[in-house]
């Protein structure tokens, strides 16, 4: 998890010069495609620039949302080897609770905070009351999480019915902003700038903040160090006097809390309705399979890839777009079954 930046990069360039050049070239082409005004031949080949840039931004922001959900999932798995298939239920329950609080108090941020805390608490309860009783029995734990997700889905349907809910985010987060990217230059010479929803940019910012926060937490704090040690060797960690149960409860709280947090963030970007639990569980599963189970960096890369694949699929070949996501998964499983950042 912890290659430190510049040194690692130099090493990579020295070892894989060819790939480094390819990556640099690709980045240069991408930057040019974002900022240059497209010539006619490019437009006739792949369509308007507006579509491309918007799709790119959508992919990146959706990737940010997927990262929020999947990071908790992968964190829990990394430490406890517990594939928590109720992770999607935590997402949806967090969203509903956040909605109720935000509606009652009129404060969206309060809803966000309560969703995080409530889900963190239920995560701790799940760990202490259920998973602790069947420690080391991975299959049983997984089956129990399936049962929890099914029961939770029906209970939520009973309480919140099938209606689609939508958050009202603060007014200043609603609407679109103009980006300093020119989409086309009109015949009159006036440039037309690209517009993009403010809220989706916020999602990206939040995901980046959470990602950096998690990285700092895992790599720069003592508890983070313990968690990393636990990922590598649980027995050794507990033998060295660390209260592993407390650590497990803490990680479960962070993982579940992030799912609830993502529920409010995602529910505001899109909407909340029954079935969202399964959708985000599936997205998290694909993200961590692609990125590598247990790796937070892997979750970030996987989320970005899947977000981009979904959005480009939807914009350029909507009917068969879904295939792209699974194609990536198939290729990764065939070529690198442990995931892009997974350990062999």
């Amino acid at each position, binding site marked *: 998890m912890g290659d430190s930046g510049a040194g690692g990069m130099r090493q990579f360039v020295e070892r894989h010069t060819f790939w480094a050049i390819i990556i640099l070239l690709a980045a240069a082409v991408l930057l040019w495609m974002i900022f240059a005004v497209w010539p006619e031949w490019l437009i006739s080949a792949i369509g308007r620039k507006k579509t491309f840039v*918007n799709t790119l931004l959508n992919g990146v922001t959706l990737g940010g949302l997927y990262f929020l959900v999947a990071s908790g999932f992968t964190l829990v798995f990394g430490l406890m080897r517990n594939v928590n298939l109720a992770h999607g239920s935590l997402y949806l329950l967090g969203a509903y609770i956040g909605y109720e609080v935000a509606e009652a108090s009129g404060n969206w941020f309060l809803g966000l905070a309560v969703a995080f805390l409530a889900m963190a608490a239920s995560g701790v309860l799940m760990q202490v009351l259920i998973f602790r009783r069947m420690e080391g029995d991975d299959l049983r734990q997984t089956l129990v999480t399936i049962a929890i997700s099914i029961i939770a889905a029906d209970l939520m349907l009973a309480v919140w019915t*099938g209606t689609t809910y*939508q958050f009202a985010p603060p007014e200043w987060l609603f*609407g679109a902003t103009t980006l300093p990217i020119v989409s086309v230059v009109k015949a009159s010479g006036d440039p037309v700038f690209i517009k993009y*929803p403010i809220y989706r940019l916020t999602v990206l910012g939040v995901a980046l903040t959470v990602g950096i926060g998690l990285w700092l937490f895992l790599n720069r704090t003592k508890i983070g160090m313990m968690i990393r040690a636990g990922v590598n060797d649980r027995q050794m960690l507990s033998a060295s006097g660390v209260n592993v149960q407390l650590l497990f409860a803490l990680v479960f709280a962070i993982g579940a809390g992030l799912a609830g947090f993502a529920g409010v963030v995602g529910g505001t970007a*899109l909407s909340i309705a029954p*079935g969202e639990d399964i959708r985000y569980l599936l997205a998290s599963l694909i993200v961590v399979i692609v990125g590598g189970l247990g790796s937070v960096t892997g979750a970030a890369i996987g989320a970005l890839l899947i977000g981009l694949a*979904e959005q480009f699929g939807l914009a350029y070949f*909507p*009917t068969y777009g879904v295939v792209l996501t699974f194609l990536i998964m198939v290729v990764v499983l065939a070529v690198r079954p442990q995931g892009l950042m997974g350990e062999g």
Partner: protein
Amino acid sequence: MFRLGKTTLVAATVLAMASPVAAQETVKMGALATLEGAFTVLGEDSMRGVYMALEEFNYTAGGKKIELITGSSDASPDSAIRATRKLVEQDGVQVMVGPLSGSEGLAVKDYAKTQPNVTFLNGSSAAQDTTLRDPADNFFRFGTEGAQWMAGLGEYVYKEKGYRKLAVLAEDYSFPYTQVFGFLEPFCRLGGKAPADARFWVPIGNKDYSSVIAALPDDVDAIYVALGGADAVNFLTQYEQTGGELPLIGGSITVDQTVLGSKGRTRDFVVGTPSAGPISDTWDDSRWAGFVAAYKKQFPDGFPSPSLFAHAYYVNTKAALLALDTVDGNLSDGGKAYRAALAALEFETPTGMVKLDERRNAVADIFLTEVAEGPDGNLLNKTIKVIPQVSQTLGLSYDEFLKYGAVSRENPVCE
């Protein structure tokens, strides 16, 4: 094999001995709607329609007590078949109402052919070929279908709104194909355009429309949107969020109560969106007003006004009960007389008279509507025009109508 045969025989004998007693007292009716997935809220309102009709008959028809057994699907054909098989083969329902969604209807119609003694009434599924091509003798549709629902809308937006070129955004299955066909056919015959590269087909349950919105062309007059339930809510919010400025034209379930009545931001920008369908929220008629009042009384936590799903399930359930009255609840001939009674049935619904054509599809009134703000701030579909007695072949003869070809992503071509 022989053992199995013997067991089945014993079971059948036991059932046969038990059934005359049961048959005298109750008729088992199954109701299937989407109580899971993207169309959950539509399914819930559908069930309200079923309960309303049963309540109206006090759960008794033809002297028999009606025992209702409900089933749930998720809008996929295989889930609908699974639920229907369970209702028919395990619970032994004799009359079946449902399903809700287009492709489910096609699947259940095919299944109906394997169960000739069970009578199937459609819920709200509105794909064309459920009754048009290769129909099942025991499948009845008293609600109309997607192409009928669009009656008058194509002409209206061409002539009154002056739209000439449109983009199309719809879910990728049989019902939106049917709607797009019903809408575009007259629109394009008048000279309107909706080229294939401006048609966007997305899977059911898609949440993130931002990239589709970015890909929508700029050089069109309006967007025809045929999305349902959560899909429509998501699209409308995201379209508003990205600062979309093109006017919309709604499919029958895109701007109905299941969408307008959802929780959260009010979607004021859809005010003025034209649409068409089997109901209109503000139709000034005592039959409709009575239906709305009964709905509100029975379901205070339902929508501000019943959706077309509640209406369709209500109409079909009521037809099932009326025909049971006609045959005095006698289904002992495998429902033959019952189905004859259904085929001949003509009755008053909350939206006017309905009768069946020779393929057992409804002929009924269709409403051209426009979204408006109601007196208490709710968004409603206000009636612009009633198009009387629309048939499935849209006024043409059956053979002539078949020449249009089956509904699909590219029908009509419209370049």
